[in-house]
């Protein structure tokens, strides 16, 4: 089966000028390649600074890579014209790590939810509101909060809202950039289960970026390990966890605190 997303040798270089004015380039992505099959979850795991957020931005078409190819449903997004890209972007949605800054704190919840629809020019006003209410229900938020400003929500509620907003345009691929890292443990579990449930009912593909190997194991079918701007290992979760091939993977595994004699939590079937 043709993978829904194929990343090929993606390179992203940031040009900066240092203190005296001489250019000092920073290489965030150094030839990243991997594939994701439709309807599955790929977890990209790596320590801070390995380039994960840059990767997320590039795939979501919020930044342009310096080199490489990005195949989405068979089309190379690097070569697509801007006008077509406007239609493709809604199908790839990004959930940010900080729930406080990804939603405009002055806006009301209803406004936040219908903004994507307004921007894409879809549906009438009444239909937009109905759609918003059904989305709220989907993610487990009660609909009497719609008139409140988003600053009044808790962290977990905000992420649910962010997920609801991402779902407004029926995306095929959802990228979660450390989406659970800012939440409390119990809330993390709730949102994780929500995601699993959404995936099975909507047949979506998830790209789950995290530094938390345990969460990756729980949620993902496949794991790709990223280090210093490159993918060093990719494979089914069970295999990666049982037989890490690369040093980077071993270090990540070793960082997980474990009780003696406990076996590693069973991965998702």
């Amino acid at each position, binding site marked *: 089966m043709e993978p829904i997303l194929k990343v090929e040798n993606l390179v992203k270089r940031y040009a900066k000028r240092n203190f005296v004015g001489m250019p000092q380039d920073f290489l965030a992505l150094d030839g990243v390649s991997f594939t994701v099959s439709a309807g599955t979850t790929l977890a990209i795991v790596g320590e801070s600074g390995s380039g994960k957020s840059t990767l997320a931005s590039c795939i979501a078409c*919020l930044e342009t890579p310096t080199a490489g190819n990005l195949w989405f449903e068979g089309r190379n997004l690097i070569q697509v014209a801007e006008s077509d890209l*406007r239609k493709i972007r809604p199908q790839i949605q990004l959930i940010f790590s900080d729930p406080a*800054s990804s939603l405009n704190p002055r806006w009301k919840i209803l406004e936040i939810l219908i903004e994507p629809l307004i*921007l*894409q020019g879809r549906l009438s006003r009444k239909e937009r509101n109905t759609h918003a209410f059904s989305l709220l229900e989907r993610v487990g938020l009660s609909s009497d909060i719609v008139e409140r400003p988003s600053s009044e929500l808790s962290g977990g509620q905000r992420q649910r809202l962010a997920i609801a907003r991402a779902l407004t345009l029926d995306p095929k691929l959802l990228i979660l950039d450390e989406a659970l890292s800012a939440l409390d443990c119990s809330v993390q579990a709730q949102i994780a289960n929500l995601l699993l449930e959404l995936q099975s009912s909507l047949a979506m593909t998830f790209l789950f970026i995290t530094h938390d190997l345990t969460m990756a194991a729980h949620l993902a079918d496949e794991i790709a390990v990223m280090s210093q701007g490159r993918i060093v290992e990719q494979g089914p979760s069970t295999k990666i966890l049982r037989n890490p091939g690369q040093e980077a993977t071993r270090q990540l595994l070793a960082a997980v605190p474990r009780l003696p004699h406990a076996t590693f939590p069973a991965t998702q079937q």
Partner: protein
Amino acid sequence: MSRWRKVAPWLLVLAVLHGIVVCAGFFAPYDPIEQDRKNPYLPPMRLHFVDTHKHLHLRPFVYAFTLRPGSFDQYMEDTSHPLPLKFFVAGDRYRLLGLLPARLHLFGADNERIYLLGSDAFGRDQLSRLLFGGQVSLLAGLLGAGFTLLIGWCIGAAAGYYGGWRDDLLMRVAELFLALPWLYLLFAIRAFLPLAVNPLQAFFLIVAVIAAVGWARPARLVRGIVLSAKERDFVRAARGFGASDVYLLRRHILPETSSVLLTQTAILIPQYVLAEMTLSFLGLGVPEPVPSWGNLLSNLQQYSVLVSYWWMYLPALIMVPFFLGYLGLASALQESPGAYKIERRSLGSLA
């Protein structure tokens, strides 16, 4: 917002103060330009309620002045000549708000003129000149502050949003303007434009000059906000939904600047009124005979006036309640209480 609670009383105070000045024609007893050469440099007339026979009158009155015997410029109260104050009298014509002709004044007296704040060298009533002068000074300050903020807002938003060489260029120019000592710049620009112009031209000239001098600081503040707002995740998310630059600026980024703009307004208006006063005081502003708070004070530069006619100083204090109102408003508007913070210096940032 609970901020509204803190802000509202100051707005009320300012509204009342400005209202009195706007309706100067009503509150002032006389036309500010009208002269009375027989009564130059009259001291302020005191209000009395009890007369020489120890009778209490409900209606306040003043005594007319006569020359002290043997002197030609010292006055004393003539107790045989009381002038009761009448309220809501018909007096000199004026135009309310510049449009509606009217003749009603808050107070006045029959036949004789009352000088509650004294008179100047030409016998003009200082109180009337003070009230009408406020119209000129306050308007200059308000207009000037308005233009400066508009210019600063546009430039700051453009610099912050587009970044790159545009940002660098605009901020370097801003630094230049900030480096110039503003008072000197003000004088230099004003003086190097035609000096002898009619009052209306002079007024607009001053407004333009004041506005041109002060745009740099608001521009930098707005730029800072736009720069940080531009990188916020909700802006990136909106871009991901297909938002255009104009949409992002209009709906997400520029609303963030509203707080700083409001505070700057409250801070700049009194400064600009003061700038007009300073210019007029030194003869570079609104010329005679049109009164402005500045040129009411300009004859204090003569030693003789300073020594003998102390009431000519009183117009200097008129700014105090206005300053107080605007200062209170600025404090109430700010997120953090207390003095406004100086920008912290750090390397490389243009702030």
